[in-house]
């Protein structure tokens, strides 16, 4: 077991080292594509970290991404970069904590409704604040961050997310979340503080999403609320996580990589009907692959090998 973990760790480190070399290729197109791939990998994995085990569908990815991006738009020029990231992360955590504490002690519907409207709510509040208080709508982002910097930061965040996810899955918190996902009533009667567990994980996941938004912000030179809070991100991340299979830590990446590439292609070729195509792909996944690629792989491996279902959480 420990040997397997060590081997896995070594392989992961090697992959990380190789991936870190991508900016050295000197090809701007590949670098941009690699940034997109990492962005969606982190977002989908973070989404799955919470929604996978608990089966609470969060539609608020954009809200957190936008909080991060907009924080950079406001503070990017004033404060040193690490501090900006820290503030963004803290803001994301606070918003997630408020949403989580007010809705996650109730049934899942309230959470869905709240997350469904959260993006629009925060966008309206930001617009209101900018129009009435700061009197600017739209800001220029002048920070000294190159595309390669963005890439490396995202790569580090990707590694951190997988490490964190792996640690949580092995922890008591991770087990608690699996029990909650199976049966919340039983979870409570086993002595699990379900509200705490859900809010904690939702906050962790949302903080990661906020960081992605902050890291990505310098990619745009100009940010306004409608760019930062673009609901398509929530939708794409949801599709990717579901295609991959959110019940496994490594699931969402299986959806994020192919779909990022596909969406890149589709949005360039069919800009007007892109949303419709996306909706159709999504419905196909919901109907045909309810447990995602990860679920399919598990099914294949159990039927092929005839062995007992593998239970280890990635």
């Amino acid at each position, binding site marked *: 077991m420990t040997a397997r973990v060590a081997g896995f760790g070594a392989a992961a480190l090697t992959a990380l080292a190789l991936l870190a070399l991508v900016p050295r290729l000197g090809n701007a197109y590949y670098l941009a594509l690699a940034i997109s791939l990492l962005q969606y990998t982190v977002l989908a994995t973070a989404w799955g970290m919470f929604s996978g085990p608990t089966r609470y569908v969060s539609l608020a990815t954009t809200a957190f991404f936008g909080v991060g991006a907009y924080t950079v738009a406001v503070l990017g020029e004033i404060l040193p970069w690490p501090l900006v990231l820290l503030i963004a992360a803290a803001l994301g955590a606070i918003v997630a904590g408020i949403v989580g504490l007010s809705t996650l002690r109730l049934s899942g519907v309230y959470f869905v409704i709240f997350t*469904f409207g959260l993006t629009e709510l925060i966008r309206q509040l930001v617009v209101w604040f900018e129009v009435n208080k700061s009197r600017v709508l739209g800001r220029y982002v002048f920070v000294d961050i190159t595309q390669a910097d963005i890439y490396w930061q995202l790569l580090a965040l990707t590694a951190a997310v997988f490490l964190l996810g792996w640690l949580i899955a092995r922890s008591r918190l991770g087990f608690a979340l699996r029990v909650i996902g199976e049966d919340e009533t039983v979870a409570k009667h086993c002595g699990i503080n379900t509200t705490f567990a859900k809010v904690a994980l939702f906050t962790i996941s949302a903080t990661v999403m906020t960081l992605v938004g902050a890291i990505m912000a310098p990619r745009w030179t100009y940010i306004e609320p409608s760019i930062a809070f673009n609901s398509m991100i929530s939708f794409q991340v949801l599709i990717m996580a579901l295609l991959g299979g959110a019940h496994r830590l490594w699931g969402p990446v299986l959806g994020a990589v192919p779909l990022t590439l596909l969406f890149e292609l589709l949005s360039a070729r069919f800009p007007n009907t892109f949303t419709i195509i996306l909706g159709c792909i999504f419905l196909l996944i919901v109907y045909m692959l309810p447990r995602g690629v990860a679920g399919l792989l598990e099914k294949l491996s159990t039927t092929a090998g005839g062995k007992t279902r593998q239970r280890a959480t990635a």
Partner: protein
Amino acid sequence: MTNAILTGLMLGGMYALIAMGLTLQYGVARIMNLSYGEFLIAAAFASHWLFTGWAISPFVGLALVVPLAFVLNFAIYKLLLTPLVRRAPNRDALEVDSILATFGLTFIIQGSMLALFGGAYYSYSFLAFPVQFLGETVAANRLAALGITILLGLALYAALTRTRAGTAVRAVAVDPFAAQLVAINVPQASALTFALGGALVAAAGVLVSTFLTFSASSGVVFTMKALIVVVMGGVGNMLGCLVAGLALGLSEALVASYVDPGLTLAVNFALFLAVLLVKPAGLFGRATR
């Protein structure tokens, strides 16, 4: 002040009508329909097209759009949602599946409307003259819409409480399993109720289009408001719908005229949270055993 209250009540009546269809879909057919607002906007576009293209009055338009929406929603339930109902082992699983499926549907409908009409705001001028009402000046189209809303609400209430089919629908809302035992065809009742909900939101869409500007991406906000009203009033509860709708409309109108029109959604959420913190089952919701 009276003007703000009157505006709020008219708006609230509209919200109540909008939410009534959703409370049927969610309370009876158990479908959490996130694409609900898209159907409203689609009906608004249909009415706009009929009025500007064919000079057909929205009141006549209602007679065309509403039956069409009923048939369309019936088909959607039968084709798209029945497989989910069949495969769901329990209510929670159906909820997750219906959330996902209708979320996908949202983007398909919204994308289609964007492709057809672009992102611009639409409106048309129908009954756009001021009239005196309760000592205040209001637009005739709003008043007409309110009148029809009240008629529709009363008709629905009568249908649910006075007819056999209505009693069946209410029985399914309370307990689908027990309803089956007293020989109610639950799948059929669910499909018809879902379609009825779709017809109601289409009616709301036609009415809204007579006095509000709308765009292909306005649907989400209407979905949001309908969801808030339904949950605030207590899922499946008509009276709750009315009270919550009025409360939402009033608070919006008051905040818009005295604080800032840009904060209406924030008010919606604040009201929603306040109700949930005090009465998690909604104003008129029954606590479950």
